[in-house]
């Protein structure tokens, strides 16, 4: 038995996606820049992918830039915008609960003469818009606020934040890291005043190593990767054709019967949360209901170290994360959990369950039963 509840870390690739990528790798393996038929066949896959993604976001095809994934998209959004706008100012605003792909990049920019404001969040992880208003200044060139958090269940008020920014100064570039949100929300960047948006394929049942950056037409941004001039020299390097095609198909499948799927996810989530909170010594982090994201569930378990619980669940075939998978490799405690004010004793006791539409109520029942069986034992043996 295997129950995979770590879909915020990565997802299983959809079999149809695998099939398509397989075919492209075996048959349409050409370099899209080649002038012969093999190249044209490969290029066609890229165009098709752009069409699919553009129709999902109701944007123009030329506003999509393919990258190696969320991290590169975030790096390009921040560094590329900072470089292109440094004459106008050197101030960048982001939040305290961003993914390291943002926060490590802002540290780099800080070392290179940029000033960064990190906006605080409330106890559910929601960014404080008053603080955003107060932080905006004439030197501000870029604001980056994530669409949905990767550690706790919260969707940020991105449209409101972007409106505030654009009202203050329409020249300021607004970026959102939508790695956890794309596929879970219908995001029409233009409707929400989003100039830049990062997306990764492997969070939506697509392959790893591919993603895109939505770049609204006429946004001032510089490339950060140089070479053969592919993608209008905005991102050199031979396009990852099978990855790009796989990502587009995965996105298309995600948005089929979309409302039904999202309703089901919220229903599964609420089903699980209400039952897990019946267990003694559990605390829910983030927002419940529709204000939270449909797939992320962060629970603190009193008197249990998350890593031990994680391995005990693993032993029963249940896969989860401690905190966020991306920060789990480091001994450091989670930034988001700290920022939303999770009590110290819970920082090292928090598990993230993250769902996908393939999960079932029966699986969640098994997880609840397993937790009820494991927790008393694990709580008996603690460190002093």
């Amino acid at each position, binding site marked *: 038995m295997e129950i995979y509840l770590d879909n915020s870390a990565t997802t299983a690739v959809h079999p149809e996606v695998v099939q398509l990528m397989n075919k492209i790798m075996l048959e349409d393996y050409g370099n899209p820049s080649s002038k012969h038929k093999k190249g044209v066949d490969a290029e066609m896959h890229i165009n098709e992918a752009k069409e699919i993604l553009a129709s999902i976001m109701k944007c123009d095809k030329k506003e999509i830039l393919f990258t190696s994934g969320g991290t590169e998209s975030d790096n390009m959004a921040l560094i590329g915008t900072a470089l292109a706008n440094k004459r106008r100012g050197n101030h960048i605003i982001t939040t305290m609960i961003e993914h390291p792909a943002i926060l490590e990049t802002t540290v780099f920019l800080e070392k290179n003469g940029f000033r960064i404001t990190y906006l605080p969040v409330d106890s559910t992880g929601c960014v404080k818009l008053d603080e955003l208003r107060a932080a905006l200044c004439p030197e501000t060139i870029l604001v980056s606020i994530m669409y949905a958090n990767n550690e706790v269940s919260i969707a940020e008020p991105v449209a409101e934040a972007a409106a505030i920014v654009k009202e203050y100064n329409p020249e300021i570039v607004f970026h959102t890291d939508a790695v956890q949100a794309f596929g879970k929300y219908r995001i029409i960047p233009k409707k929400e005043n989003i100039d830049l948006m990062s997306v990764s394929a492997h969070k939506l049942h697509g392959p790893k190593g591919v993603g895109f950056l939505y770049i609204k037409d006429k946004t001032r941004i510089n490339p950060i990767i140089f070479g053969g001039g592919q993608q209008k020299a905005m991102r050199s390097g031979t396009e990852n054709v099978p990855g790009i095609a796989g990502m587009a198909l995965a996105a298309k499948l995600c948005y089929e019967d979309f409302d039904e799927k999202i309703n089901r996810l919220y229903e599964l989530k609420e089903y699980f949360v209400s039952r897990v909170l019946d267990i003694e010594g559990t605390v829910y982090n983030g927002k419940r209901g529709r204000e939270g994201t449909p797939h992320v569930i962060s629970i603190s378990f009193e008197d249990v170290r998350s*890593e*031990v619980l*994680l391995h005990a*669940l*693993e*032993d029963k075939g249940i896969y989860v994360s401690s905190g966020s998978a991306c920060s789990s490799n480091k*001994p450091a405690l989670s930034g988001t959990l700290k920022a939303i004010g999770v009590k110290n004793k819970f920082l090292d006791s928090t598990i993230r369950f993250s769902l996908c539409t393939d999960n079932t109520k029966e699986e969640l029942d098994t997880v609840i039963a397993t937790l009820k069986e494991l927790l008393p034992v694990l709580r008996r*043996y603690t*460190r002093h």
Partner: protein
Amino acid sequence: MYKAFLIKYGEIGTKGKNRYIFEDMLVRQICHALKKVEGNFEVTKENGRIYVEGTDEFDDEEAICALKKVFGILWICPMLQVKDEGFDKLAEDVIEYLRTTYKGRKMTFKVNARRARKNYPLDSMGINMSMGEKILDAIPEMTVDVHNPDIYVNIEIRSRINIYTELIPGPGGMPVGTNGKAMLLLSGGIDSPVAGYMVAKRGVKIDAVYFHAPPYTSERAKQKVIDLARIVTQYSGPINLHVVNFTDIQLYIYDKCPHDELTIIMRRYMMKIAEHFAEQTESLGLVTGESIGQVASQTMHSLLVTNAVCKLPVIRPLIGFDKQEIIDISEKIGTYETSILPFEDCCTIFVAKHPVTKPNKKAIERSELKLSERIDELVKTAIETTETIWVE
């Protein structure tokens, strides 16, 4: 011209009538180490020296790197081997060799000829003098110093003629396998892999025991120990790694015994289990990475109490080392970076805030009486369910 190495060994030359055993073992270990190097090699022993000759093309650096990890080797001398085509040709080859190796640097030299083949027309003194003159004439930057030269130009007349000037230090020690076998208690830390390296250096073949405590320790922690063992095998040769599931024993001790004694009691059972595998595999001792006073379980008092359960000698090669000295060796042998990966090991998961530092053997034995009901059965199960991994 051929490339080859002269291997000089120190200590094993002094072992009297057992010498050939040591030499044969060294030849075997050299062959084993060179298996991973691209190319084919012939390893021969002759008059207290070992020659490594490449029978086809090979990369010097790669071969030297492999030889530097063979215990028993004192010096590695890269040689040029030439056919005997008369003294004048030999002189040409020597001069060419010195020119390419030292590229016109100012230095002093002394020719050091050895004639293993006595039918060579010149004797050793003759070669020294004539060759010295030829070098002085050909390379003006080089001058003779017979007392304290920068380099010795060694010329050995055998069936072929060997020319060498360079001595690269080997690891020293004795060939692995010449001193029996021992069982290493390997954790994921910095110390135990170094301890394994140190006994292997003295010619001891090692196997290892690792105590795994799922779910308190992760699969990655286990993989880390396998990775560490693999690094040590570069020096020690293949290791049989016994992975013991220790969780139930640990929890049982936790349930029954005072918590400040957990670590010490746990270590006593680790020793007992390690000794079981040692005896099963005819090992002559246990090896640990302990160093006096490093942690509570390594005070003199604690060592006495853990030692008391063992019949075999417990070898602690790091006993007098400071942490930094141990780290220095682990960096040198390449285990440090793996050792510091942050995974919990079973010694730290239940560690008390104030563990006993001066345990009393009688008191500990009294505490252990509380385990009498199930401990034998748990130890038996742990031994029976042990997974053995061949690491090389």
